[in-house]
């Protein structure tokens, strides 16, 4: 127990991230299932109240984005990146532990809102955030949202932002500075590259939402009017600040999955990635362009024709680098010897489904066309094709691929294939009809709709599909769990992968590499025209390897943050100060702790 609480080992932290994020994924999925059950019939469905429904979709979106998908990617950053670059750990192991604890506590804080009602003299299930995952002002003002709901949201996101920023600095430095000898930038595995790009997006985009949330906090707690027209403020400024973060955020969600796919495809087609440099640079270009398109979420706010044109144009440009990636992936498969493992199926599924989401994205990018689509189920279809069809399928590919490395146990391929096909059918059944319900006039975020709209049939299909995904997910969960009772007998390189993580045993020893390898090619474990495969590393370290011990301080420091948030929530300054005290003591003890690296 203590070993896990104080761990600074990137592999353990990776597993902690994985299980925590997966738990939140189940919660977010459960929320989605309730949403789908409610919408199965017009006029009321399951009888979920409007207020509860609003909390459900807000928490569903927030949970999936911040508590499930980002940290699932982080699980791989943690576990895989140091292995892929040939390092013993990340650059700042304790900062890494801190990120994890802050994430966990922030997630618990957000979800505590579901049961915290009685503390505020309200019912259970009545104080969870309920203003949507992008919390548009001025609905989020005290006047229109008097309860603690929005406070939970804004404080929770502040906490989570700290976790992401800390991890962002850590991984930027890890990837740039901890590479094994010979691991030049253009020899980095694509997953590592995309992680690097993602972390640059994190460290630039999160400060913006931090500012937005701080301003909102001032409006709600201290009576300023940053977003309130009654005092001259402008609710549209919130939208700009949010989407300046929010759009880079969606690329934060997709780029790691694109990186995973770029690892999985070469391995299972026995061919190097086609156009490695182009794939890497297109990722950089996507991230760069991703900063210039935020207002495409605001076409209906009346930006004026010039801004509309500019943002429509920049948005469309992103289709080019994304398309380049897709064509290179297909070219990687082309001419290969494709092994249809579950991991490969998910990677191919990713390409197939992401295209659909990308193309509906292009229909959004056309500003006038979007006027008929924005805030309807058509957008819901888009986001789930890119987020579920893209990110989640990509992450599944990664889980099947790296699970043996992470745990030493192979997942069942036959269960995996059931999981894949059920998921694929389920997601299309759930999300494809949403294109129609949207264009036939069904707005998003409605807990009820009129039977006369004629969209009930589509909603039924969506609900059936959602429950199929649910079943598939339970099968997957079972597949994960059952490996715990199996012997850890996965070979070091079960898939004949080419990158460094496959050069060491599964699961890797604490110190990762018996000796730090010297890298001479992009595919160190493969025989290529110019390079023989790397010579195997010795079985045991030739000299003792120093491994840093654990530390309590990251976790203790992290605990200060939710205490501050609880104090703010309850308007009790002493608690805020106590939390700040914990943070300060934690930082000092951390700074002066003898911690050998």
């Amino acid at each position, binding site marked *: 127990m203590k070993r896990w609480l104080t761990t600074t080992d990137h592999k353990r932290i990776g597993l902690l991230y994985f299980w925590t994020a997966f738990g939140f994924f189940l919660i977010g999925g459960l929320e989605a299932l309730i949403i789908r059950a409610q919408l199965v019939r017009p006029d009321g469905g399951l009888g979920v109240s409007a207020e509860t429904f609003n909390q459900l979709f807000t928490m569903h979106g927030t949970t999936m984005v911040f508590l499930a998908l980002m940290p699932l990617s982080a699980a791989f950053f943690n576990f895989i990146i140091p292995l892929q670059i040939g390092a013993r750990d990340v650059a700042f192991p304790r900062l890494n532990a801190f990120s994890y604890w802050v994430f966990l506590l922030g997630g618990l804080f957000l979800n505590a809102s579901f049961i915290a009602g009685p503390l505020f003299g309200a019912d259970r299930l009545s104080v969870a955030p309920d203003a949507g995952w992008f919390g548009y002002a001025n609905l989020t003002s005290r006047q229109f949202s008097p309860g603690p709901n929005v406070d939970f949201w804004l404080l929770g996101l502040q906490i989570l932002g700290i976790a992401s920023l800390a991890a962002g600095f850590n991984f930027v430095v890890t990837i*740039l500075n901890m590479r094994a000898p010979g691991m030049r930038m253009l020899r980095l595995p694509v997953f590592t590259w995309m992680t690097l790009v993602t972390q*640059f997006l994190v*460290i*630039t985009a999160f400060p*913006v939402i931090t500012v937005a949330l701080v301003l909102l906090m001032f409006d709600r707690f201290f009576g300023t009017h940053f977003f309130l027209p009654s005092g001259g403020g*402008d609710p549209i*400024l919130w939208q*700009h600040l949010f989407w*300046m973060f929010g759009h880079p955020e969606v690329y934060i969600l997709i780029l790691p999955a694109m990186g995973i796919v770029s690892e999985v495809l070469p391995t299972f087609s026995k061919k190097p990635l086609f156009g490695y440099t182009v794939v890497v640079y297109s990722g950089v270009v996507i991230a760069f362009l991703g*900063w210039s398109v935020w*207002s495409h979420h605001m076409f209906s706010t*009346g*930006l*004026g024709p*010039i*801004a509309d044109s500019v943002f429509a144009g920049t948005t469309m440009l992103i289709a080019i680098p994304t398309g380049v990636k897709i064509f290179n992936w297909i070219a990687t498969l082309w001419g290969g010897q494709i092994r249809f493992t579950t991991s490969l199926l998910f990677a191919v599924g990713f390409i197939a489904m992401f295209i659909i989401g990308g193309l509906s994205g292009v229909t959004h990018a056309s500003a006038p066309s979007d006027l008929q689509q924005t805030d309807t189920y058509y957008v819901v279809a888009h986001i789930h094709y890119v987020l579920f069809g893209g990110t989640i399928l990509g992450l599944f590919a990664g889980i099947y691929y790296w699970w043996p490395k992470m745990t030493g146990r192979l997942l069942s391929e036959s269960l995996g294939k059931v999981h894949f096909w059920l998921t694929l059918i389920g997601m299309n059944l759930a999300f494809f009809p949403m294109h129609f319900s949207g264009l036939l006039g069904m707005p998003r975020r409605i807990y009820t709709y009129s039977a006369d709209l004629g969209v009930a049939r589509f909603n039924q299909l969506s609900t059936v599909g959602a429950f199929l995904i649910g079943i598939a997910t339970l099968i997957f969960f079972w597949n994960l769990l059952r490996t715990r009772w199996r012997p850890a007998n996965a070979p070091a390189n079960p898939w004949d992968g080419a990158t460094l993580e496959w050069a060491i045993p599964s699961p890797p020893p604490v110190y990762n590499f018996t000796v730090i390898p010297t890298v001479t090619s992009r595919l160190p474990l493969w025989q290529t025209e110019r390079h023989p495969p790397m010579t195997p590393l010795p079985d045991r370290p030739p000299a003792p390897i120093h491994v840093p011990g654990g530390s309590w301080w990251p976790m203790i420091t992290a605990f200060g943050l939710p205490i501050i948030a609880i104090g703010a929530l309850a308007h009790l300054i002493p608690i805020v100060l106590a939390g700040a005290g914990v943070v300060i003591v934690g930082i000092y003890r951390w700074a002066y702790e003898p911690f050998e690296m």
Partner: protein
Amino acid sequence: MSEQAHATTGTYLRVALILVMITLIEVGVFYVPAFQGVLVPVLLVLSAVKFALVVMFYMHLKFDNRFFTFLFGGPLLLALAVIVSLLFIFYGTVRLRTGT
């Protein structure tokens, strides 16, 4: 640690002198009516110079690893772009709204 080879106490003092002088000029320009028309561009240029001096000499960016320049300059340019485009969007729409 090769900075010492490049920056000496003398450099630091000279930079400080320039910084103070620019600040004096800034304040001076602010009070001189003749400059009112070009106040904004002049002030922006002057403060950019101060900014650059501190970053280059006091923060050693001029002498340090070039990569740090990217690590700092990239986000800095992004921040500038954010400011400029928001101003454009907001003042642009104000004109549209009050114009016709």
